[in-house]
């Protein structure tokens, strides 16, 4: 079937919506299709896969934060009874990485270890215990190198380099972009605000530890089951490192017990078990320990940031200048994208006519940072929303009213050329103000009690893929069975967020059947067409639109056959309640299985496909590939706090949150995502820290994770959760399937700044960093009492030699989306040519 053009795809979506006055599945709170398996413990996670003759793998990891490997002697381990195989870096030398521009990882370090926990060798043995014991029998001779423990040290220490690539020394990536003359913008302001913030790193903490099982198939091919959010990208990395044809590799993403971005990179342990299975011709399994999950990390980057913002007396922003210094850890991971993201979405909530962003990501000898829920954007969102609270106070305005005045408009193209979709932030703010009783609480509660407000926006799917290509971002195949069953084949990956349920509900709605009549074959690179993965909140919109197109195409075939049989014009046929019938005479029609049989008799075997490609972005400057999305979700939150005046203890009794979701396909799951975001946001706001310890130089001088355990890495428990009042704001966006936008990440973003703003309302101290711990509040309270500045936060932003910014005139200054001073580009990008994602 020929691929339809973009324009018809959009109108097709509109058709479904107009028919959708009487939706039977979409919008109805339902039990999720995979719910029974989950609650009865029958979901098969990667570690639940038990195959005969399985061998077990353990990784020997570097005990040093930074060292060269002089020599590895594996002979004693190989001689240990029960050991089948020992692998080292020379067995898997090919470099890989999630982004084409940072292919800086090796499955096992060849000659350079970059953080405590970097893997240097693998033991595969009959028993996991044997493999563990044999790790101690591997002799590694290290030459210790200077440890770079934080970004400021990285700036000051160009040698030794952690990587041989990057901008210079230990600076991985510079970003410098200017959209209009910010200095002129700030000069036009009535008030100028300069604030420095620090956002501590945190990790994803999925309950399921990463696990993988690989086998060599009887025909010599490779199959790997893995807890991954991105089977397609893993597929590519395996083909590269194992130097095998992709056609001989099958990746099956097992349902993930939580991902949150932590399972979005191809990982060393996945490559190692694949290699071992091929060499041994037997299944090889690994299940990481919790400590090892902390070493995989790819979590929230610690970010030091400085905002300089000019505003008019009425709150209008005249210009904003943001600088960030980002602690990247030991590898690139998604870091280049993270560095762009840290400056990308400031313009999506409030109108900022002139905007400048400078970001610097450094390498350090710690586990690599990467994408965690909200990827790169919660840190600057924290600074922006706390600064806005300070602005409102200075201007003597209610911070909710201030925000309402300066909101960006629907369908606008922002200063940095992001094209927005529907924007219902006004309604979100009004709702949270109402349900939280904001007007009677803000600055009116007794000492120690306070409320704070913050807003945010997030992508509904990254507009560009990770590697440059013109193919769809998501594909769906449907197979129609004579018995009335419909099978969905799609690469989309269920990580607990409900991606299977999204696919089933859309197909069921279009075809008038029950979601439980649908069978799902997802996350399998052999069975389904490519979906890029469960990241960037892309599945509902992208896989959803692909499923919608495939279902509509199937529906058209069935309608034609039924119309002929029933002698009814096909336009009058309706698909509902597992029947296909005349909407003018509902008794006249056939059952859904009969409809399939009629169609099969007429057209042959019924199978349809659908796919989705995001619209072109107007951003054509270098770096403009990060930030575009088909549409954006919006959120507003009011957090209530109680602050203990002596101990500084912060308690959160209630959170009110409103999320502009377009349409909730399954409101039960949508609310779960919002509450889960509140939970994770409170963890980052109040306690979570990816903290490291530097031991004294005269002794071991190790730089180790302070406490890589589920017990001592503090994340809230159910007892620490407040009451959450969730408001779903539904105004269908024509770009999403049935109007749906994302809900998995956006609702996290306003929580952290809203907590900080509430603490200020409660006790009058500013905590300009997260986590907001009691000792910080206590210190700020003591400063307040002593008449000093009642604030806890970073006191400086270091000097950085920024490169010259790419100057991109914003749309209202006649810009066309290109930079005017990009010397590396011979001519401006043409409208039709896409901009490469970094």
């Amino acid at each position: 079937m020929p691929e339809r053009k973009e324009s018809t795809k959009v109108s097709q979506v509109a058709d479904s919506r107009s028919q959708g006055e009487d939706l039977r599945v979409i919008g109805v709170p339902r039990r999720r299709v995979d719910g029974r398996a989950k609650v009865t413990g029958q979901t098969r996670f990667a570690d639940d896969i038990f195959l005969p003759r399985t061998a077990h793998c353990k990784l020997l990891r570097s005990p040093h934060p930074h060292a060269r490997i002089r020599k590895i002697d594996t002979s004693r381990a190989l001689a240990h009874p029960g050991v089948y195989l020992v692998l080292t870096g020379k067995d898997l030398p090919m470099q890989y990485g999630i982004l084409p521009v940072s292919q800086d990882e090796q499955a096992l370090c060849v000659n350079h270890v970059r953080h405590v926990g970097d893997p240097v060798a693998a033991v595969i043995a009959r028993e996991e215990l044997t493999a563990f014991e044999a790790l101690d029998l591997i002799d590694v001779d290290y030459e210790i190198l200077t440890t770079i423990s934080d970004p400021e040290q990285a700036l000051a220490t160009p040698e030794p380099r952690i990587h041989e690539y990057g901008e210079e020394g230990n600076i991985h990536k510079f970003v410098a972009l200017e959209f209009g003359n910010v200095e002129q913008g700030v000069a036009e302001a009535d008030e100028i605000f300069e604030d420095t913030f620090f956002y501590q790193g945190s990790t994803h903490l999925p309950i399921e530890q990463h696990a993988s099982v690989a086998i060599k198939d009887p025909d010599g091919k490779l199959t790997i089951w893995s807890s991954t959010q991105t089977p397609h990208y893993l597929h590519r990395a395996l083909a590269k490192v194992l130097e095998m044809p992709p056609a001989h590799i099958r990746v099956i993403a097992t349902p993930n017990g939580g991902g949150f971005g932590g399972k979005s990179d191809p990982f060393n342990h996945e490559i190692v078990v694949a290699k071992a299975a091929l060499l041994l011709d037997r299944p090889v399994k690994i299940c990481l320990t919790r400590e090892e999950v902390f070493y995989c990390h790819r979590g929230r980057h610690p970010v030091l940031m400085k905002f300089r913002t000019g505003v008019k007396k009425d709150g209008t922003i005249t210009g904003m200048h943001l600088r960030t210094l980002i602690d990247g850890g030991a590898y690139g991971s998604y870091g280049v994208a993270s560095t762009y993201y840290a400056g990308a979405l400031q313009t999506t909530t409030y109108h900022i006519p002139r905007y400048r962003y400078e970001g610097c990501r450094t390498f350090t000898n710690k586990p690599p940072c990467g994408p965690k829920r909200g990827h790169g954007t919660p840190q600057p969102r924290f600074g922006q929303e706390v600064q806005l609270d300070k602005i409102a106070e200075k201007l003597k305005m209610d911070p909710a009213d201030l925000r309402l005045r300066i909101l960006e408009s629907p369908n606008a193209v922002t200063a940095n050329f992001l094209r927005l979709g529907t924007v219902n932030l006004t309604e979100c703010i009004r709702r949270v103000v109402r349900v939280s009783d904001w007007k009677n609480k803000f600055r009116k509660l007794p000492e120690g009690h306070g409320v704070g407000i913050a807003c945010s926006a997030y992508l509904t799917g990254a507009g560009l893929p990770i590697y440059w290509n013109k193919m769809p971002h998501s594909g769906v195949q449907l197979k129609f069975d004579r018995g009335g069953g419909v099978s969905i084949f799609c690469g989309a990956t269920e990580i607990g967020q409900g991606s299977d349920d999204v696919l089933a509900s859309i197909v069921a709605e279009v075809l008038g059947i029950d979601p439980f009549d649908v069978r799902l074959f997802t996350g399998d690179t052999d069975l389904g067409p490519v979906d890029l993965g469960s990241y960037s909140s892309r599945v509902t919109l992208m896989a959803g639109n692909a499923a919608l197109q495939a279902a509509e195409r199937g529906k058209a075939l069935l309608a034609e056959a039924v119309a002929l049989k029933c002698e009814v014009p096909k336009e009058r046929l309706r698909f509902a309640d597992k029947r296909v019938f005349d909407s003018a005479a509902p008794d006249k029609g056939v059952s859904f299985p009969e409809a399939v049989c009629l169609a099969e008799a007429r057209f042959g075997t019924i199978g349809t496909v659908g796919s989705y490609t995001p619209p072109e972005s107007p951003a054509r400057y270098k770096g403009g590939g990060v930030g575009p999305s088909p549409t954006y979700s919006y959120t507003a939150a009011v957090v209530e706090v109680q602050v203990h005046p002596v101990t500084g203890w912060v308690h959160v009794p209630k959170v009110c949150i409103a999320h502009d979701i377009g349409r909730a396909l399954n409101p039960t799951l949508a609310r779960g995502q919002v509450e889960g975001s509140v939970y994770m946001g409170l963890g980052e706001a109040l306690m979570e820290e990816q903290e490291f310890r530097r031991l004294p130089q005269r002794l071991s001088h190790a730089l180790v994770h302070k406490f890589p355990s589920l017990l001592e890495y503090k994340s809230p428990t159910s007892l620490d959760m407040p009451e959450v009042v969730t408001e779903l704001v539904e105004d269908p966006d024509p770009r999403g399937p049935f109007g749906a936008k994302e809900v998995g990440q956006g609702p996290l973003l306003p929580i952290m700044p809203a907590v900080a703003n509430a603490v200020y309302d409660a006790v009058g101290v500013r905590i300009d960093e997260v986590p907001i711990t009691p000792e910080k509040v206590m210190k700020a309270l003591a400063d307040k009492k002593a008449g000093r500045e009642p604030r806890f936060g970073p006191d400086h932003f270091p000097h950085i030699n920024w490169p010259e910014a790419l100057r991109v005139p914003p749309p209202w200054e006649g810009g066309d989306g290109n930079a005017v001073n990009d010397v590396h580009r011979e001519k401006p990008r043409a409208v039709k040519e896409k901009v490469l994602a970094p």
Partner: protein
Amino acid sequence: MMRLPLFEFRAPQTVLEAVRILDGEGPKAMPLAGGTDLLPNMKRRQQVPKALMSLNHIPELHQKTLSDSGSRLGACLTLSEIAADAGFRNGMTALAQAASFVATPQIRNMATLGGNLCLDTRCNYYDQNYEWRKAIGFCLKKDGDTCWVAPSSSKCMAVSSTDTAPALMALGARVRLVSRLGEREVPLTELYQNDGIHYIKRRPNELLTEVLLDSLRGWKSAYWKLRRRGSFDFPVLSVAAAAKLSGTGVVEAARIVVGSVACLPLVAREASELLVGRPLNQGTIAEAAALAARIAKPLDNTDFDMTWRKRVTAEFVTYALRELRGEDMRGERLLLTRHSSSL
């Protein structure tokens, strides 16, 4: 995942049989009660016993006798049983509170009173798995020669983290230790010592079989626990207070114990003595709290900032004493501990 090392397993039916096994195997055998602390420690290779001896099949360790004239609590009573039994109220409220605040419901269903009293001391540099400890060159408590908390110290500074010991010390409890050669009763205040490695005076061939309490008629007690979250966490500061009050509200006898700030729970003697003969009014409580807080010298080896832990000690002693006085402390309990019930 982390695997247990191999070990022999013994399951005696009587105390006599158990102490014979301990005597025969020597220090390489360890009693296994709930296993909630020992088994994870073994996975991290903090303890690698040659043999584990289950106490689960010894009926007398599961017995309890509660009476007005005194009580006997078998060492294998689970913390859930203690938290749920209304018999542990009034005088023994501190014990019930302490038991109910340990870890999580699932762990309390397994964990035992005796196990919690013998709980290994804890430290951020010690409660790590094998590879982590190897990366720092190990520590004084296990496999190394440096105490990372206090590198110049020749003594291990690991922290006593038991919830029930401070509570039972405030209640004046004794424990019975049985060995093949006989048995002895030791006041709980004398069971522990100020050394993170040799924190308990139980000899390897002795089994802690029961906890003994004298009559607590006229006594009231309370337990306050500081931790980051409402569940899971070990205490980073604990305060147990017990007092016998006269009809007019004058303190006739009192014991305040501050836990989780040293290698052993500390009896705040000066503060306790100060209370005697005085009514529990605001002034008395403030004086006692200041005295009790003076003995707390937390180090940087648990969750939270140590200076902050030190500063909130007096506050927590105040809460415990105010609760003894009969004040409604549910608001503070909910705010600071996520638990509204004072039992």
